[in-house]
C-alpha cells in the first residue's frame, strides 16, 4: 500500500532534513499509528503520501505507483483513492452536513443520483443520521470530525490518512472517533494516523511507527505510545 525507499525530504532554507533516509512499508489493510514529537517528520510523511510534496531523494510508492514518476494530471486520480482527515476538520461553514459530504463527490463529477444514494449511507456509518441539515457550527467537535470522516470515506478510499484527528477533541469523544476509524479499517481501508494521544495508542495496540528527527526510531507491530525513556 505504502512503501518508502530511503526517502529524504529537505525543505528549502532548512539545513536538517525533515525526513532522513526513511524506509518502511505499510501493507494493505493495516492500521498504523505515526507517533513522535512535533517536528519529527510525521506531517512530512503524510504530505509525501498525498503527493503534496516530492521527496528530495528516494522513492515513495502509494497504491502501486511511484509518485515521483506520476505526472501532474494523474494526481487527482491518486487522491481519489485516499481519504484525508485533519485535526481542524476543514468543513465548509456555509454548507450543511449532507452538502459537505456531497461536495467531495460533486467536485469529482459523480452523478447526482449516486450522491443522493451514498451520502445518507455514509452518514449512517459515521453515526450522524438525523443531522443531515445541520451546519458545522451547530455541531460538537466530535460530530464535526465525524462529518469530516464521512467526507473522507464517502468515495470508499483504499487508504485513509488521519493527521491528529483527535487533537482537538476531549478523551471521551476521541474514543468514539477511534472506534469509527477502527470500523472503517475493518471495512478494508488502510488507516495511517498521526497522533500525540498516548492513551489511544496504548489502548488500540496497533502497529506503531515512531519518528524522531526525521528517522524511524521504532516500528512495533502491536506497540504503545512510548517507552519510559
Amino acid at each position, binding site marked *: 500500500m505504502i512503501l518508502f525507499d530511503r526517502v529524504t525530504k529537505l525543505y528549502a532554507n532548512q539545513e536538517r532534513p525533515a525526513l532522513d533516509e526513511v524506509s518502511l512499508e505499510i501493507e494493505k489493510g493495516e492500521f498504523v499509528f505515526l507517533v513522535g514529537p512535533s517536528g519529527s517528520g510525521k506531517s512530512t510523511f503524510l504530505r509525501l503520501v498525498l503527493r503534496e510534496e516530492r521527496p528530495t531523494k528516494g522513492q515513495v510508492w502509494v497504491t502501486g505507483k511511484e509518485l515521483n514518476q506520476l505526472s501532474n494530471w494523474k494526481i487527482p486520480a491518486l487522491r481519489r483513492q485516499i481519504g484525508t482527515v485533519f485535526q481542524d476538520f476543514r468543513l465548509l461553514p456555509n454548507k450543511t452536513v449532507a452538502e459537505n459530504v456531497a461536495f467531495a463527490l460533486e*467536485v*469529482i463529477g459523480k452523478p447526482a443520483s449516486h450522491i443522493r444514494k451514498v451520502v445518507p449511507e455514509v452518514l449512517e456509518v459515521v453515526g450522524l443520521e438525523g443531522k443531515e441539515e445541520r451546519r458545522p457550527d451547530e455541531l460538537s467537535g466530535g460530530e464535526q470530525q465525524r462529518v469530516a470522516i464521512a467526507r473522507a470515506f464517502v468515495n470508499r478510499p483504499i487508504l485513509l490518512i488521519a493527521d491528529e484527528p483527535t487533537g482537538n477533541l476531549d478523551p471521551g469523544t476521541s474514543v468514539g472517533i477511534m472506534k469509527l476509524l477502527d470500523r472503517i479499517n475493518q471495512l478494508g481501508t488502510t488507516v495511517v494516523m498521526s497522533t500525540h494521544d498516548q492513551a489511544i495508542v496504548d489502548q488500540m495496540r496497533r502497529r506503531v511507527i515512531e519518528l524522531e528527527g526525521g528517522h524511524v526510531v521504532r516500528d512495533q507491530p502491536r506497540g504503545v505510545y512510548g517507552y519510559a525513556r
Partner: protein
Amino acid sequence: MRVNFVASEVSSGIRRNLTMTMAVIITVAVSLGLFGASMLVRAQVSTMKDFWYDKVEVSIFLCGKGSDTPSCAGGPVTKAQRDQIKADLESLKPLVVSVYYESQAEAFARFQEQFKNSPIVDNVKPTALPESFRVKLSDPTKYDVVASAFAGRPGIEQVNDQRKILDKFFRLLGGLQLIALLIALSMLVVTVLLIVNTMRVAAFSRRRETSIMRLVGASNFYIQLPFLLEAAVAAGIGAILAVVGLVFVKIIVIDQVLAPSFQFTAFVGWDAVLAIAPLMILVGVGLAAIAAFFTLRKYLRV
C-alpha cells in the same frame, strides 16, 4: 461534468465578489469600447478613401493672363498647345480614364456656385480663373506618371493632385485612430491586471473550498473552471456593453448627427459594425480567459 454544480459555483462566486466583478465589467466595457471606436475610425477612413479616391481628379491648370510661372513665359496658352495636351492625355489610356476640359467661363460658373454667399464673388472676373483639364485616373496612386509628363510644359501653369489634399486629411484621421488604439491597448492592459487581481481575491476567498477539492482529487480543470467562467462571464458582459455602446454611436452619432451634417461624404455602414462587434467580444473574453488562466496556474496549483 456536473453543469448545475459548476453554474451554481460561478453564480455564488460572482455574488461573493460583486464589487470586483463590477469593476471588471466596467473596465472591460470601457477598454473594449475604445478599441471598437478606434476600429470604427479605421473603417471610416477606408470608407472615405473608397468614396473620395473614386472622385479625385488630377487637375492640369493652363496658363492664363496673369500666370507667372516659367512655363507660362510665352503668355496665355495657345489653341495648338491646348490641343496637343489633350491629345497627349488621350494617348495615356488606359491609365487616363477620362479627360474633361473646363473653360474659363465654366470655371467661373463653378466658382460662383461654390462661393455664392460670399462677397468675394463680386471681385473676381472670369478671366482671373484658369482654364483646365480635369483628368480621371484608373489608378489614382499613379499620379506621378501624369505629373512628370505634363508639369513644366509650355502652356501649363500647374499640375494638381487632389489626392494629396485628401491624404493630409486621412493622415490626420489615421493619427487619431492610432491614438485611440494606443489608449485602448493600455486600457486592455489595465483590464488584464484588474482581472488578475480579481482572480487572486476570488482564489483567496475560496481557498477553503479549493483546498478540499484538491484533497478529494478534483481535477485541475474542475477546480479552475468556475474561476475561468466567472472571469469570462464578467468580460462577456463588459464586451456586450461595449458593443451596445458601439451600436449606439453608429445610430446616434453617425446616422443622426454626422451623416445629415456632412452629406458630401460617405460614412461607415452596419457591415463595419457587424465586423467589429465579434472582434470586440473575442478580444474581451479571450483576454479575460488568458489572464485568469495564468493567475490560476499561479494561485491554484495542485
